[in-house]
């Protein structure tokens, strides 16, 4: 437990009298350890004992977890012997490893105080006999994950199991609420409020920008807010539903639904007001000791590897006890690991940890780390959250920080003592990343937060939940609706949308009523909905959850067949981990790439495996793909970056090479104002270029690039392609775009007009590979297609139709289908980041500065360097085919 490593007396907040006195046994236990209970721990105890829910916001090392469990431990100790085992406290964490860790740490206080309290974990790894026993004879405290909670709630015994629940503790709530897992958990909470009316909710969170959103998440919201939302279309809200007893449900309310109706965009709905949990805040501990690593070497204008800084990072590892080296992508992790070992003359124990590695391998690294055997771990976001690593005395973050809150979380992984400063270095990989690091340093200095907004609940997740609720027990649609809209993320839901979801779950939600006789849930003569049979319930259990991994293939080491060069023996070696299927598909035999710290040679694909051999000799890997950063630059940091660029007085605080670069830009072109958009045009070779710098992140820029290309095409400027990074885009055309702007002064403004989010966006969505990927995720979550687990062979029953084909057909024949609405809702904030693009277009209205140049400017070089790196799957297919054909034609004519 974090508190066991915290120093005893000092706390960020002044000591206050608690609402209830701590029982003697507990006071003695604290005293025996030389501790005093912290103010927030007593506050939370008082609040929970008064039957109120609360959000505890505290920095790492503040004894947050003990605080969360204190009401349960005290309550259970006072309850005395219980007649029959009843679940008293439910703890939900986003990581199963965290649940296991917490269980271990609860052992100490329980044993030392001699409490009669049984604590158990339930994760995907829990054996089935234990699961069965946990339902029949529940522990006092159950530690689990959101997915497992949903499964328990879909159990026929759920009402009995949760009937006596007193406390619900939600850990790392800030991380949960921004994802679909948070949607799922909010629906589970809504159900728990019905099953366990006596329970209070305790949310534990790192510092967030808007704690009120989390406070609303923790408690039930009034129904009134939901039904007062405008509900256009036929029928009043909450019509009594159809009469059919054959499961046909009522006639489809789909015919009148227009495309534009549907979930509100983020920012609408879920507004202020509503019930909120109490708020208990622990002010931040010691200021972080944070620096930008400046080796004095000149950094490139693009690229993220930070190869220049590797020797300096190695020296830092040598000079510290244990170092966490964070990177942004798996490929970068592999690269960094490789480079550090190249320098590792002292053979320091440096390990690697990322989500694609074999699970057993990851567990070994975690165990070695916990045992203090490692000097450094190179890791991705997989170690962002949770587990107490104890002895880490330095965090190094390679590459762009991307967000202030994200970087603070990572820094917090060093030194779990709240009162001592965490020490960290930010290592930029290029000159733009220097800007981002500077902005992040400032933000951390001011403790400014840029955590993302709380989500609006997804329709795909809701569909999954509705099926789960039917598995638990027969439900009345009106009651279930009331329950669902009491969850803050689903306050926006209208009765009509809910009916659509129920209709989808029952028969697929198609205007063409083809599946009535196969309905999954049926409405009986008593008006209640029930699941059709045990097979459907089993299908639900197999597909529960909201994490849809990209399709993956195992990477298996093989050996060459003796005497037959070029042939390998399948199944001859061990599995090293998994790679995305998409990445595997881009490899050709003989390609070398980095994986699990080794240079591997691709030998081919066999069924569901990617076969590789160890590459001989000291050849350099040809890393065939740079997967980009998973996290786009946060709006907040982007604004700061723009502000730094716009203000030359700020440049003194920048590394000299960066200041010099900005001066060069000012000399050869101009630097945009803080809120302006700079657009440059220039010829190069036999092409014309347009570059723009919105600083809105790669995803929004990719969408912008697609849309601008369409507009330029319509304007007859013959665009040929575009490239994007986190800071800007470059588009190249075969006609002079600069000349057009000179001739028609309003052209730039029209080009960047907000109306591109109308028809152009619609047209593009038709064919967007990103949209298809988004749709696939919704289809899996909503149960349209079954989940495929890594390594699992396709069974005959499973759908072997590509979701791309399903998307195309559905879009054409029922564009307002529930899953397309769900995919659109995701597109606004997900892979397409349409919402952010819209914000940017509004910001720059009337603020576009165009600079016509005769050559590329220093600023534009950075984005020009991205050209040729882009991979846009599935788009521009004909050009690729034409080029391949031309090669053949060339051969023929030679």
């Amino acid at each position: 437990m974090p508190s066991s490593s915290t120093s005893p007396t000092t706390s960020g907040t002044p000591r206050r009298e608690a609402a209830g006195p701590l029982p003697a046994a507990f006071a003695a236990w604290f005293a025996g350890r030389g501790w005093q209970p912290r103010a927030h721990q007593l506050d939370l105890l008082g609040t929970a004992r008064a039957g109120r829910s609360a959000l505890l916001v505290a920095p790492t090392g503040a004894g947050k977890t003990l605080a969360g469990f204190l009401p349960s431990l005290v309550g259970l100790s006072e309850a005395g012997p219980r007649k029959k085992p009843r679940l008293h406290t439910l703890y939900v964490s986003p990581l199963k490893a965290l649940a296991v860790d917490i269980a271990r740490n609860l052992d100490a206080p329980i044993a030392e105080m001699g409490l009669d309290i049984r604590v158990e974990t339930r994760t995907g790894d829990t054996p089935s006999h234990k699961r069965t026993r946990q339902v029949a004879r529940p522990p006092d405290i159950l530690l689990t994950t959101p997915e497992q909670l949903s499964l328990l709630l879909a159990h026929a015994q759920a009402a009995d199991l949760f009937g006596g629940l007193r406390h619900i503790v939600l850990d790392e709530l800030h991380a949960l609420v921004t994802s679909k897992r948070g949607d799922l958990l909010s629906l589970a909470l809504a159900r728990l409020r019905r099953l366990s009316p006596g329970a209070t909710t305790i949310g534990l969170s790192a510092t967030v920008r808007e704690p009120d959103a989390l406070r609303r998440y923790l408690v039930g919201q009034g129904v009134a807010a939901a039904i007062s939302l405008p509900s256009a279309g036929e029928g009043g809200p909450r019509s009594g539903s159809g009469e059919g007893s054959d499961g046909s449900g009522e006639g489809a309310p789909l015919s009148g639904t227009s495309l534009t109706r549907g979930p509100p965009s983020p920012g609408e709905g879920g507004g202020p007001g509503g019930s909120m949990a109490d708020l208990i805040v622990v002010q931040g501990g010691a200021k972080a000791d944070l620096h930008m690593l400046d080796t004095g070497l000149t950094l490139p204008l693009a690229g993220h590897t930070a190869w220049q800084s590797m020797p300096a990072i190695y020296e830092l590892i040598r000079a510290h006890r244990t170092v966490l080296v964070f990177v942004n992508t798996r490929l970068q992790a592999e690269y960094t690991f490789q480079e550090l070992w190249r320098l590792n003359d002292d053979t320091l124990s440096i390990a690697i940890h990322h989500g694609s590695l074999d699970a057993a391998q990851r567990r070994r690294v975690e165990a070695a780390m916990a045992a203090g055997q490692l000097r450094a771990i190179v890791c991705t976001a997989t170690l962002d959250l949770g587990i107490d690593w104890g002895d880490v005395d330095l965090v190094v973050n390679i590459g762009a920080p991307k967000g202030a809150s994200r970087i603070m979380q990572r820094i917090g992984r060093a030194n779990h003592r709240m009162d001592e400063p965490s020490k960290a270095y930010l290592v930029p990989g290029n000159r733009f990343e220097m800007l981002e690091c500077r902005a992040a340093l400032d933000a951390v200095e001011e403790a400014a937060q840029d955590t993302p907004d709380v989500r609006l609940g997804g329709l795909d997740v809701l569909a999954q939940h509705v099926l789960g609720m039917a598995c638990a027990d027969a439900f009345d649609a009106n009651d279930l609706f009331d329950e669902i809209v009491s969850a803050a993320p689903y306050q926006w839901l209208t009765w009509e949308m809910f009916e659509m979801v129920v209709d989808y779950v029952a028969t697929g939600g198609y205007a063409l009523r083809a599946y009535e006789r196969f309905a999954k849930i049926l409405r009986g003569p008593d008006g209640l909905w029930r699941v059709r049979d045990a097979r459907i319930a089993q299908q639900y259990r197999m597909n529960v959850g909201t994490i849809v991994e990209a399709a993956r293939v195992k990477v298996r080491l093989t050996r060459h067949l003796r005497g037959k060069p070029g042939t390998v023996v399948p199944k001859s070696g061990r599995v090293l981990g998994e790679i995305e299927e998409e990445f595997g598909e881009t490899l050709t035999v003989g390609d070398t790439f980095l994986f699990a710290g080794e240079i591997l040679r691709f030998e081919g694909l066999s069924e569901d495996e990617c076969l590789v051999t160890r590459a001989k000799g000291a050849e350099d890997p040809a890393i065939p793909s740079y997967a980009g950063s998973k996290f786009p630059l946060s709006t907040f940091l982007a604004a700061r970056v723009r502000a730094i660029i716009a203000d030359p007085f700020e440049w003194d605080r920048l590394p000299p090479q960066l200041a010099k670069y900005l001066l060069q830009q000012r000399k050869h072109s101009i630097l945009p104002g803080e809120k302006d958009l700079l657009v440059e045009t220039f010829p190069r070779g036999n092409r014309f270029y347009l570059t723009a710098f919105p600083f809105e992140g790669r995803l929004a820029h990719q969408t912008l690039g697609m849309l601008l290309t369409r507009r330029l095409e319509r304007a007859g400027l013959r665009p040929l392609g575009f490239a994007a990074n986190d800071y800007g885009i470059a588009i190249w055309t075969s006609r002079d775009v600069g000349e057009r702007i000179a001739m028609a002064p309003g052209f730039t403004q029209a080009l960047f007009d907000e109306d591109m989010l109308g028809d152009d966006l619609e047209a593009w969505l038709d064919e967007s590979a990103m949209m298809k990927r988004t749709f696939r995720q919704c289809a899996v979550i909503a149960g349209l297609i079954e989940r495929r687990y890594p390594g699992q062979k396709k069974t005959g029953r499973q759908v072997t139709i590509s979701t791309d084909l399903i998307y195309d057909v559905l879009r054409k024949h029922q564009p307002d289908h529930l899953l397309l609405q769900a995919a659109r809702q995701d597109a606004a904030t997900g892979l397409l980041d349409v919402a952010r693009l819209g914000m940017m277009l509004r910001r720059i209205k009337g603020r576009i500065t165009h600079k016509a140049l005769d050559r590329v400017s220093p600023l534009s070089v950075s984005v020009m360097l991205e050209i040729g790196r882009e991979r846009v799957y599935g788009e521009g297919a004909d050009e690729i085919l034409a080029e391949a054909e031309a090669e053949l034609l060339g051969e023929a004519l030679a």
Partner: protein
Amino acid sequence: MTEASLPLNEETILALGLRLEKTTKAAGLMLAGEILTFDRTGALWLEAHRTLVVSDLHLEKGSSFAVRSGQFLPPYDTRETLACLHEVVCRLDPACVVALGDSFHDARGPERLEPGDRAMVAALQEGRDWIWIAGNHDAAVSEGVGGRYAAALAVGGLTLRHEPSVSAAEGEIAGHLHPCGKVTMRGRSVRRRCFVTDERRLVMPAFGAFTGGLNVRAAVFEPLFPKGFTAHLLGDGRVFAIGRNMLGKD
């Protein structure tokens, strides 16, 4: 940083595509003395016989999953496939349409046809000869969808059957394998349905909206085309001829 050091690599692939568009005539070839035209929809046009051939329609594939595994895929694949077919039929006005087997995804497919789709099939058959060749999915298809049934069919010097046979004489046209070709250029890859031919025989792409594909580099194609082949990939705008050496494995 000087301009010359920029590793720019922006080939004008789009412009290239446009130029080719203008210079390339309709895709097709001679096979057993007959002129074959590859339509970009995946249909084959035998103009001399005014005969249109489509393979592997797999009608009612979507609804077959509801029967087998309780998964409700959009029931619009039949409608979509028939709409595509309708477009080609209107454009070429064939005297005869040959559905080269696996026209229905399963033997009970015809029973599940929606009334509207059934009417569309009838409308397509109106005024022309219509032949259902038996496939492995629909060998025992129940009748009631019009047209004639046949195991195989001879058209001029050509033999039309569902499954390609290794020992076939020159001029065999078959389907069954759902060939797809994959082209990778500069790290971008495109996978499309295709016609496969060595100018002795032809394997047709699947026409159905929900039909997947088998990569032409798969072993099963080797005995059929021992001396290599050319794949004619269905692009968005037209058909592209790609040599075997340019096609990637999956």
